[in-house]
């Protein structure tokens, strides 16, 4: 009798309880996600485990894990990760799995050649200007204004502005603002004339002392929280932390114009991708359940309210827009100006090429012209290799 009950119990568990590994890359919001995943596990009798990973190692780890056959079941990643769908053996996502409240534009960020490889959960992921109201009465609108205020900040013993200077996600916004685009369709377009302007302008910000070229992520995060820097350029992922630490002192504004050109940061959606074709595997049902769960209005709202992440639920976004305060309005306004990242594989190659050329330029090894050429050449070679691998 006892043995029979035990077997029944095990069989029953084996039929419903699915262990799902959930790879999460953001430093922020993991607690919210963890809580939501636990809730899902409870509700659906699955075991979803969140594995934290850094954004830098996400791509290589993902590909290696696929090669090794140890890939996570589902990965929460920026939408441009879709570009490695081939290497990551991402499952094609049926349209049915996409919430009807997710608009088409957002879906495009997760599509290649009209094939959806990811399920958008969040959107935004864009940069914006944060400022400390205790140090700044009126946020700047141009870089020239910041230069004029620099002396005051120096006297106050605080840095004018900080961001992760060597991180290309920040530099890409400058390139966009000057009119460049990292990719156009399936083409890498790093050697366009705006690259020269962007590089020189970007460097001048450092040489003029507005920002330190040695600045890491902490300059625009930790130092800002600690009041050591008046302005910070950071992403929407940091809003929750800033609000938590600065409270009413936190101000959000548009990143200053470059001349008359409005700053255009990159944006993307944050999607669920299913490596090693997990969506077609034995855990497919559970994964689908999880996808539905994370797109649900309730979860989307929790993500906005708790993690301060921008949901993809269009109704919820509309609601947010209506009820938004000054900071939220600025955040959304910046999103409006943002340039969505391409999901093409070329985008991935462009990132690497951009970083290589920028490093050489930033260290003074080559000039801006040569840097543009090098970026383009490197990215094209990698993209070519990518295509070769696909074939």
């Amino acid at each position: 009798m006892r043995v029979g009950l035990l077997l029944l119990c095990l069989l029953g568990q084996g039929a419903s309880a699915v262990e799902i590994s959930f790879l999460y890359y953001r430093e922020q919001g993991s607690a919210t996600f963890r809580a939501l995943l636990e809730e899902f596990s409870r509700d659906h009798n699955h075991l979803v485990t969140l594995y934290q990973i850094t954004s830098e190692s996400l791509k290589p780890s993902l590909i290696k894990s696929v090669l090794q056959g140890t890939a996570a079941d589902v990965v929460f990643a920026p939408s441009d990760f879709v570009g490695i769908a081939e290497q990551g053996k991402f499952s094609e996502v049926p349209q049915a799995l996409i919430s009807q409240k997710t608009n088409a534009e957002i879906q495009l960020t997760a599509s290649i050649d009209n094939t959806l490889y990811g399920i958008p959960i969040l959107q935004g992921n864009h940069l914006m200007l944060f400022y400390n109201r205790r140090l700044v009465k009126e946020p700047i609108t141009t870089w020239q204004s910041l230069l004029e205020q620099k002396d005051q900040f120096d006297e106050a013993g605080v840095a004018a502005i900080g961001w992760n200077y060597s991180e290309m996600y920040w530099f890409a916004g400058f390139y966009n603002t000057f009119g460049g685009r990292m990719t156009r369709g399936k083409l890498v377009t790093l050697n366009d004339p705006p690259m020269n302007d962007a590089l020189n302008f970007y460097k001048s910000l450092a040489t003029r002392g507005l920002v330190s070229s040695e600045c890491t992520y902490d300059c625009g995060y930790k130092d800002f929280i600690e009041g050591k820097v008046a302005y910070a350029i950071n992403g929407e992922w940091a809003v929750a932390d800033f609000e938590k630490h600065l409270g009413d002192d936190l101000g959000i504004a548009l990143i200053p114009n470059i001349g008359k050109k409005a700053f255009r940061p990159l944006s993307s959606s944050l999607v669920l991708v299913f490596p090693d074709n997990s969506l077609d595997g034995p855990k497919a049902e559970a994964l689908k359940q999880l996808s539905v769960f994370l797109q649900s209005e309730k979860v989307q709202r929790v993500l906005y309210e708790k993690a301060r992440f921008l949901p993809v639920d269009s109704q919820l976004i509309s609601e947010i827009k209506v009820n938004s305060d000054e900071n939220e309005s600025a955040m959304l306004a910046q999103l409006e100006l943002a340039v969505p990242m391409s999901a093409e594989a070329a985008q991935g190659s462009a990132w690497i090429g951009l970083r290589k050329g920028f490093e050489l330029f930033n260290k003074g090894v080559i000039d801006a012209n040569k840097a543009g050429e090098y970026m383009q050449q490197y990215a094209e070679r990698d993209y070519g290799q990518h295509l070769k691998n696909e074939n």
Partner: protein
Amino acid sequence: MRIKANQLRTILALSILLGALLPSTLIGSFMLKQIAEQDQQAITQTLYLKANNIAQNIQHRVRQLLLDLQSLAQVNDVVLTPTSAIFGFHSNQLITEVLQQNDWASAIYIVDLDGRIIEGAPLQAEILDLKAHLPAVRRLNQLVKQGSNNAVVEVYQDAEFAQLVENGEAIDSDSGLLLMQPLVQKNLNAIENSQQVGALLVFVPMQSLWKEAESRISQHGSLELFHSQRLLFKGTKGEEPIRRFYIDVDLDLSNMSEPLSLSLSAESRSFWGLLVERQSNVVIILLVIFVLVAIIALMLTRRIVDPLEHLSRLVANYSEGRYDSKAPSLAYEEFNQVGSLLNSMAERVTRDQEQLEQRVTERTYELEQANHTLQDTLGKLNDTQLELVEKEKMAALGGLVAGMAHELNTPLGVGITAASQLVSNFQTIGQSLENGTLARSDLEALIRQGAEGGELLESSLQRSAALVNTFKALAGSDIDASLQRLNLKTWLEQQLQMFLQPFSERQIQLSISGANPNMLLNQRAVELVFSCLIDNSIQHGFSSQTFPHIKVDISASHETVEIVYQDNGTGVQAEDINLIFNPFYTTGRSSGNVGLGLNQVYNLVHQHLLGSVESFTAEPQGLGFKINLPREYGK
């Protein structure tokens, strides 16, 4: 104080100095030589160890680098980088880390199969062109295809990588080591189907090897690295020395087709080089030795010379008669003994002097007495001598007179007899006439006897007259004192030929040889001398000689002329050779010779020619005369 070379002080000091310095210098030189040799051996040994050390260090570092590359080649991100630059960020961190750990590598690359750079470190290395190294990559790919996944080390030529090294201009070389590790992607799910996707390339320029080795090379040393007998680089620390020696060591990197050859050289120091190197020490030691020896020499000299000077002053005092001086106490026992002896000697001298003075006084008296005796004796001797001379003269005169009397006695006796006969005959004639008994026959007999007696008387008187003339000639009184200048040989040749003319039937051979000096002399005296000598030879020597021969040899000096005259006649007995100049000595008295010819020669030579003559027995036979004459009469 003046220093003189012959002073004992100087000699002594120099002797001590040299005696001490020479061995010191020789020993010092020997030791320095030994040190130099040991030094050279040590340098050689050190050089060998250094060369091995450098070689092993290079080998070790290459191996370490190869191990690092192998480790990198096991890292998935690195292996996957050539296939996707997504892995590049992490891979770049890894190769940068390896580069930092292997600071002598100037660049590390991850390249794809076509040799295109995917990742590179340091940053500036990424923009370098690797086209020149594509053949090396292809060779590596080929090896991998043949089944070898081992790393390969080659030698490259590319100046670009030297510029990535700090102080890369230290040596002039565009070569370096290229380490290539294939990147092989394995199917991570299975063992099978591995595939090369790219390679890790590491460039180690020779500048790095030199930088690594430089600290291990001594000043003026140099390091050369060869591959296939091609010089890859030559590094010299400091100025290149003139004298140096080499140590060659093979640098066997197992991943190379041919080994590298490492040649390390160091300055070969000469003995003088060592001396110069240790100049200050040598100079200080020599100076110290010299000063010490000089001080010792001076002290010893002073210790020896001072007593000597005391003794010298003492002896000087004694020499001046101050025998009351006493020797002081001196440094050495030997000198004190000498001083003591001198003191004793002075006492003895003083005592002896007193005794001597006494004896001198006595002797002086005795000598005075003896002197008087001697004066007397001398006077007597002089008297006796004069008496003897007189007696001799008288005896000589007596002999001469006796000789003359003897010679004159016969003709005069004959003359007297003849005259007595004549007188007797004329008395007989007169008596007979008075008595008338004079017969014709008697008268004729008496007249005939008278005529014969007259003739005999005449001949006796003539002979006596001839003898008197001879005696006159013997004195030379008929020779005038005039002098003539002539060339002796020329003159003698004519004169002797003329003398011999009357005896031409005798076939006498005449030889005149030697010098022909110009002389100032009494020609008449010389004529008479040679006339007498030839007469002597003919009369006495050649009586039984079939091939008579007269030889005259003349030799002249600056002041004198020697004439040697000799014949090959019968000569004289040895005991008579000293008698031939005596007057009236003759071997032919029976032939009517008087024996005054050679005496005349003697007188003429000594008195009229102011020379000398002596006789000798000629060899093998005959009689000879040596006549020495002054070249200029009276000088």
